């Protein structure tokens, strides 16, 4: 039972043997395998099902799930409730007709679990009742309200089944679960149980929600219990550890290899200020760090909101945990994110509440519908060069017309604008219609479970996917920014400054994949310093692209009920995109996997982590309200020992002071990855940061593993 850590470090042991064994079992895939044995409940026996409205069908499905899903109570578990249906792991509502599931489920959101703790499900039910009483609810909305109430009934049914089972087993958890999540919790233990049970129900029904600000939600309960000596800090750690362990219940022993397993978008946020500006850091913050340090659990990717006043004690603690590897903790620059949200139009209080969507895109938790539309920005440039005109949105460029960098850039900018506009109009059309001078939301698939936990849906009488939430956000995400900047810079140098070749010739060479032009390719590769090396000349291209992109997106925002904040990401799409890109001007050949998120193109940066951070921070990142992630991989030797902790803390502080947005740091050693490729069974708990999520390395397919290894090879 050795939880993986880089560089022969031993993870500390604070938890009981039983808890550690439970964690091990869960990480080895015992419960995920079990869930796959019962993928879904069957709706085949429901008479007249096909004649029901989709919402009615959905209500029945949720009710059947609540009634029929296997109950699982693990030996020694300190909190109960389990999402035991396998189709949920596959992002579907786990209810089927004729062997087929009916609806995909919802992810990329963080539900309002804080409200569940504050007023209980009963409080939410009361809100529904009162709304129905006080308002003239049109008939068309009644069905939705009915559905909300049905969902609560289903939750109640599932809860009762657990209580019965616990009672029968004489489990002490019976009393813990008895009143929550229907009533507000009376203790820390109940609070953890309440949060888990509500979360587990949303997962049971297929959804993948983030958790949000767990220390803010639970800290008060712990303080009060500690003050009145009802609990010790060790007992509290043990209870909270079970929340993390149960969150691993979807891990399978042998999942199909693709983009990794630990990615059910269940992000947790720690620390930072509350809506009044007070620091929320409390004992729960430290306990979470203890737990992930000991168990190396990466299934709840943890991000910390760091600001200029974050004490060194917390930063050093974060650094200590990061040093074990696994990419478990990421960093938000709180001040910049809040300012960015205010500039975008959120109120100060709302901005201060920010969390993420379970991945890393910034949003107000519990109040936001969110999705993002990714596109390959490099493809837009290749288009502009006339290399390929099949790109989404772009108009395609004519060969040989650009007499200067400025002309080329302007043409690229126009194409980028066309791409953004086309994303906007497709997005808006898919969700909204404009009738009688009014925006109306189009009907979408049923999703009452997440609507129940999203502020606005009750008030507006509309579902999460139909404009119910307080904020409805769709963000265009540009990808390949480093590759565009590097390409432009290489063209500037090769064609316009050093005059080694004409643009027309270069385009032809790229179409022929640099064939018979090895000397020129080597010059492009070796003679210029690209994004990630703190070279102003190229970094300015990246900054300019992002600024222009933000301008175009901003111009479209505010025209309809969907907000349209810009973001930067690839989330590993660079693997897929590689197939559709030609060779690029900075010397890379067709098919090579290029940059991820806001990180440098692999192999082009050689000045180390500080230079990468500086290149990234030259852009005005506050304009990218949805987020812009930088991934950094450090070699274990560079952060060894006490000074390694100081080094990580210094990187974080520099990142904050230079105006970074979001940084994911991993400590990794390519040797270990290669060994894990050879002997996967010995590296089952080795986790890596992929993007907004972590994955057990051995569950990634070869392309993804290769991408991780290439990224780690840049580790300094």
């Amino acid at each position, binding site marked *: 039972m050795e939880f993986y850590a880089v560089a022969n470090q031993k993870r500390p042991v604070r938890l009981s043997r039983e808890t550690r064994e439970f964690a091990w079992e869960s990480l080895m895939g015992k419960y995920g395998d079990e869930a796959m044995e019962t993928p879904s409940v069957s709706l085949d026996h429901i008479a007249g099902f096909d004649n029901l409205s989709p919402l009615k069908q959905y209500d029945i499905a949720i009710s059947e799930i609540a009634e029929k899903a296997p109950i699982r109570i693990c030996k020694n578990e300190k909190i109960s409730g389990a999402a035991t249906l396998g189709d949920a792991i596959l992002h579907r509502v786990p209810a089927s007709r004729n062997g087929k599931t009916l609806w995909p489920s919802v992810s990329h959101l963080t539900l309002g679990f804080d409200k569940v703790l504050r007023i209980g499900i009963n409080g939410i039910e009361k809100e529904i009742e009162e709304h129905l009483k006080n308002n003239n609810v049109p008939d068309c909305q009644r069905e939705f309200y009915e559905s909300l109430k049905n969902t609560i009934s289903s939750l109640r049914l599932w809860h009762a089944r657990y209580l019965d089972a616990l009672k029968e087993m004489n489990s002490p958890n019976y009393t813990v679960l008895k009143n929550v999540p229907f009533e507000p919790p009376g203790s820390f233990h109940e609070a953890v149980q309440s949060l888990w049970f509500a979360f587990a129900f949303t997962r049971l029904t297929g959804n993948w929600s983030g958790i949000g600000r767990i220390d803010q939600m639970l800290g008060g309960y712990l303080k009060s219990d500690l003050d009145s000596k009802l609990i010790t800090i060790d007992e509290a750690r043990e209870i909270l550890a079970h929340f993390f362990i149960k969150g691993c219940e979807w891990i399978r022993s042998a999942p199909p290899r693709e983009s990794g397993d630990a990615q059910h978008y269940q992000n947790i946020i720690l620390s930072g200020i509350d809506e009044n500006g007070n620091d929320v850091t409390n004992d729960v913050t430290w306990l979470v760090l203890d737990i992930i340090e000991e168990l190396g659990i990466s299934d709840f990717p943890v991000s910390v909101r760091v600001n200029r006043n974050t004490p060194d004690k917390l930063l050093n603690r974060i650094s200590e945990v990061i040093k074990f590897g696994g990419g478990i903790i990421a960093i938000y620059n709180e001040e910049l994110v809040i300012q960015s949200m205010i500039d975008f139009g959120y109120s100060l209080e709302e901005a201060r509440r920010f969390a993420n969507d379970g991945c890393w895109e910034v949003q107000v938790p519990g109040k936001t519908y969110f999705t993002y539309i990714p596109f390959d920005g490099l493809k837009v440039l290749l288009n502009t060069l006339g290399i390929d005109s099949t790109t989404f949105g772009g108009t395609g460029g004519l060969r040989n017309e650009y007499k200067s960098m400025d002309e080329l850039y302007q043409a690229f900018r126009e194409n980028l604008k066309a791409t953004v506009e086309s994303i906007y109009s497709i997005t808006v059309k898919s969700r909204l219609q404009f009738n009688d001078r009014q925006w109306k939301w189009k009907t979408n698939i049923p999703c009452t479970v997440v609507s129940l936990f999203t502020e606005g849906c009750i008030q507006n009488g509309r579902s999460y996917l139909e404009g119910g939430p307080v904020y409805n956000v769709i963000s265009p995400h540009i990808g390949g920014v480093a590759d565009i900047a590097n390409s432009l810079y290489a063209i500037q140098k090769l064609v316009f400054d050093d005059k080694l070749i004409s643009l027309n010739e270069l385009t032809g060479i790229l179409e022929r994949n640099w064939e018979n032009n090895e000397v020129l390719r080597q010059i492009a590769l070796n003679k210029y310093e690209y994004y990630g090396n*703190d070279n102003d000349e190229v970094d300015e291209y990246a900054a300019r692209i992002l600024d222009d992109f933000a301008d175009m997106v901003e111009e479209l925002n505010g025209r309809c009920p969907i907000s349209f904040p810009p973001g930067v990401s690839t989330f590993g799409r660079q693997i897929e995109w590689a197939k559709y890109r030609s060779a690029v001007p900075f010397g890379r050949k067709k098919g090579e996997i290029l940059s991820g998120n806001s990180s440098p193109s692999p192999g082009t940066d050689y000045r180390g982590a500080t230079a990468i951070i*500086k290149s990234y921070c030259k852009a005005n990142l506050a304009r990218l309200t949805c987020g812009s992630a930088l991934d950094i991989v450090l070699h274990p030797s560079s952060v060894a020992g006490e000074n390694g902790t100081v080094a990580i803390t210094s990187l974080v502080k520099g990142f904050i002071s230079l105006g970074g947005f979001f940084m994911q740091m991993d400590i990794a050693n390519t040797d270990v990855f290669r060994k894990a490729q050879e002997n996967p069974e010995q590296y089952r708990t080795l986790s890596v940061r992929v993007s907004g999520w972590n994955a057990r390395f051995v569950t990634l397919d070869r392309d993804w593993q290769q991408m991780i290894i290439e990224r780690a090879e840049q580790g300094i």
Partner: protein
Amino acid sequence: MAMLVPVTEIQRFSTHDGDGIRTVVFLKGCPLRCEWCHNPETQNAYNELFYTDKNCILCGQCASVCPNHCHSIISDNHVFDRSNCKRCISCVSGCPANALSAVSKMMSVDDIVNEVMKDSAFYLDKGGVTLSGGEPLMYPLECIEILSVLKSKGVHTAIETCGFFDSQYAGRIADVTDLFLFDFKDSDRDRHRKYTGVYNDKIIENLYLLDNCGKDIVLRCIMINQVNMDENHTREIARVYHTLKHCIRVDLIPYHPYGNSKYTRLGLQPKHNKELIPDRRALSQIKDFLASQGVPVYLHN
């Protein structure tokens, strides 16, 4: 006139040459010729050529620009005859693939300061700039100039030195240096001469001179199997530590045969042999002994 010094590398995000995040400036030229040297390219003060075979794409550009006909491409092999090489470096600009590169470039104090200040956001109170080499104090006036500019900007400064430098500068150097990473390679006078080319008298004299200036000193002790890992030297390390007033720590640095590829790239015979690698247990014993003598000791990997 601007002062120029030969710089082989300015390495950012270094976490091994002093505290915090540091930028290390490697100057070219060293008065010692240690048998175990892992930076052979920093020994000679004059510029040299690195040739990295695996980068060569056999394009022949070097052959066409070299005035001394040192390069030729013979049946898919790049033959580099260094005997006629006048180190004019013309071939470097001709090489597209970085197979040929100059070991150093001359930089002014201003250039160096500008470069190292790029990471000032990461230095904070602990990190900063370290001058290393080679032996940086082969250029005492330039070092003083660089470090005094950095001090005026509030940057923490360190010098990594073999201790063999002109004693008259000790006071002025110490004025602008916060931390000395001072090599204490061997306490045996004759052995020191045998393996490094010089006696250690001047080095020890300079160590105490710097100590009298009141700045922190870390004694950096390289540990080489079959050379200096005996009881006498170990006891001497403890004794020296206790006679110094401002030594804050002893670092034990195990020998690694890292430099071989650099010897090859310089056209020299690789020197390193695995027998010199110290045994982990012997290292621990030395570490424990020093600790038992009240010496704060850190064993590097």
